[in-house]
């Protein structure tokens, strides 16, 4: 029993963080919004880091890593509000195809030339897939009404929900960071607004929500990776607390920014819109709560202190 995330796993996620911080700042979001939404050069950078093949077995030329590694990196993608479809393709569709034994195109996946897409019935659309375009509030989401048959495989749903939760945590962390930085420099009544206790406590509440969302997320990722019987429950738990943390962080951050936060000029809106999108994607709050309800109140899952890791 060890809840410590191994340092080498954190190092990989940190390398991705550093890379994205240097290449995918808010000015990139602005440029992509004004133009074609996607940038082959950015994608190529991700390919060069081996990320499309992160979950592809080494025997197929991938890195052969696990869902916890992918969740750590999905969080980084949320943190920079990544436009490229890395998460949905490499961390959702790819492991699902592998789980189904569809390994024919994995070399192209690793090379970044084939980006698999998976449509699930719980969503009304598919991200970065073929089909009639559907407009999202998030200007960098490319949604399409799915033309192919949609799957109802629970594993696909859990992969999608888990990776959405990971991105939501990263989005919430980034919005908190933006609010903190703004609160340090914006002055009102002769002092930085971050010196007011009301602002401090509002942002402290976001910190609390995040501090207790992260371990739920890591636990869910490991459980799904382990193929644990209760993995779906833990994924739902993660999706729910990540969604709530992201909404809280967004509402707190815009409040701290005041009218500035209501402008296109300030970066915050990109993150808020992604949070609203992912909060409803891959199972709504109600859907995931119902799974928890069935397990906990419905007695399908053992609860209590002796069952922390049941």
């Amino acid at each position, binding site marked *: 029993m060890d809840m410590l995330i191994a340092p080498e796993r954190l190092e990989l996620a940190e390398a991705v963080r550093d890379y994205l911080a240097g290449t995918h700042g808010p000015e990139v979001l602005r440029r992509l919004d004004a133009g074609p939404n996607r940038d082959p050069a950015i994608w190529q950078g991700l390919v060069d880091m081996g990320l499309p093949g992160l979950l592809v077995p080494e025997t197929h030329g991938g890195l052969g890593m696990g869902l916890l590694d992918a969740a750590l990196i999905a969080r980084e993608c949320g943190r920079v509000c990544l436009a490229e479809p890395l998460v949905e393709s490499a961390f959702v569709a790819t492991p699902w195809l592998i789980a189904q034994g569809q390994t024919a195109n994995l070399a192209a996946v690793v090379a970044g030339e084939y980006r698999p897409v998976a449509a699930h019935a*719980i*969503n*009304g*659309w598919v991200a970065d897939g073929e089909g009639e375009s*559907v*407009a*999202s*509030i*998030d200007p960098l*989401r490319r*949604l399409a009404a799915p033309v192919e048959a949609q799957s109802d495989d629970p594993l696909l749903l859990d992969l999608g929900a888990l990776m959405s939760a990971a991105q939501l945590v990263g989005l919430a962390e980034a919005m908190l960071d933006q609010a903190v930085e703004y609160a340090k420099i914006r*002055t*009102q*009544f002769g002092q930085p607004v971050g*010196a*007011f*206790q*009301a*602002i*401090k406590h509002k942002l402290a509440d976001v910190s609390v929500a995040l501090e207790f969302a992260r371990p739920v997320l890591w636990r869910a990722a490991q459980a799904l990776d382990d193929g644990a019987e209760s993995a779906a429950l833990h994924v739902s738990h993660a999706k729910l607390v990540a969604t709530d943390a992201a*909404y809280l962080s967004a*509402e707190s951050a*815009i*409040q701290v920014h*005041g*009218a500035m*936060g*209501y*402008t*296109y*000029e300030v970066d*915050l*809106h990109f993150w*808020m*819109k992604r949070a*609203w*999108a992912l*909060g*409803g*994607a*891959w*199972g*709504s*709050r*109600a*859907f995931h*709560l*119902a799974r928890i*309800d069935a397990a906990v109140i419905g007695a399908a899952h053992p609860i209590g202190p002796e069952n922390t890791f049941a």
Partner: protein
Amino acid sequence: MHLAYTPQQQAFRAEVRAWLAANVPPAPLLTLECEEGYHQHVGWERQLASGNWGMVTWPEAYGGRGLDLIEWLIFEEEYWGAGAPLRVNQNGIFLLGPTIMEYGTPEQKERFLTPMAAGEKIWAQAWSEPGAGSDMAAIKTTAFRDGDHYVINGQKTWSSRASFADWGFGLFRTEEGSQRHKGLSFILFDLDTPGVTRRPIRQLHGHPGFAELFFDDVRVPVENRLAGEGEGWNVAMATAGFERGLMLRSPGRFQAAARRLVELFRQHEHAAAPSAREAVARAWMDAQAYAYNTYAVAAKIMAGGKIGAEASLNKIFWSELDRTMHRTAMQLLGAAAELRHLADGSINEWLEGYMFSLSGPIYAGSNEIQRNITAERLLGLPRVGAG
């Protein structure tokens, strides 16, 4: 306390309802934050005025109907119940209008109120400056006297409607070297005066919902000042009282949203979270409570009373109610929450409304400021304080 309408009030309600049924546009107008939508809404204001519905509480001489606040509330209930458009001139009719009624000269009333009620002149507010948001007393823009004119220099921001409107109003520093609340005057200005530059600010949803205003030696006649020179702060506080208090957000708007939320819940009941069910019932409760409170405030004013610091309670309540209702709707929509258009092709009004609701706790004095006012002026807690 008497909870029934008089026959006269009932007849008035019927008259309003009939007019609205015949006149409210069948399809929603475009958002008033974009140029085309703005002009659609101005057209609607003029249509309202053609029926003498511009501002029913104003004297007939200014284009009103001389009705009382209860009749105004009845009008508002029917207005929002009928799904009529937002009032593009709300800065004028709900904020500046009552202020002019209280502080204006007879000439100013004649000059400004009549075209306001007629929808001929649309008003922008110009309260904030880059360094003066919640801290409105930090205003720096100057309006120094030069004969029978003020010459304005400086910058305003977050000026709602200013991208397209005709006139603006705001506070300006008329006394050189004055500090904080002192030396400010309340001045009205034509937005097309030479030296005024408007820079629309793009909002998060993409529309230019507010603008920056730059003033470069803008000459405004002295008769455009409301109340005395240097008395601007008190006038502005009265306006802010209208904004936070009775007028700006009439209960009908929230009652209509609560009803739509109930309908949305019925559609999604099979897949709703338990807390959403309670949140929906609570939305009705809170919108009703807000309506009762408004009726009570109206009765108090009609009996000769005034709105004081309790306007801050009002501002906190409606703005957080609005945000909560729309957040609940977003959760009920699930995967569809992010879509700009719903399956039937209609605009996702809940998403638009949620974004708009996020501004409620910020504008008209942030809710942090309102809670300070509540604690200090209503509860008497000490003003000094450290973090």
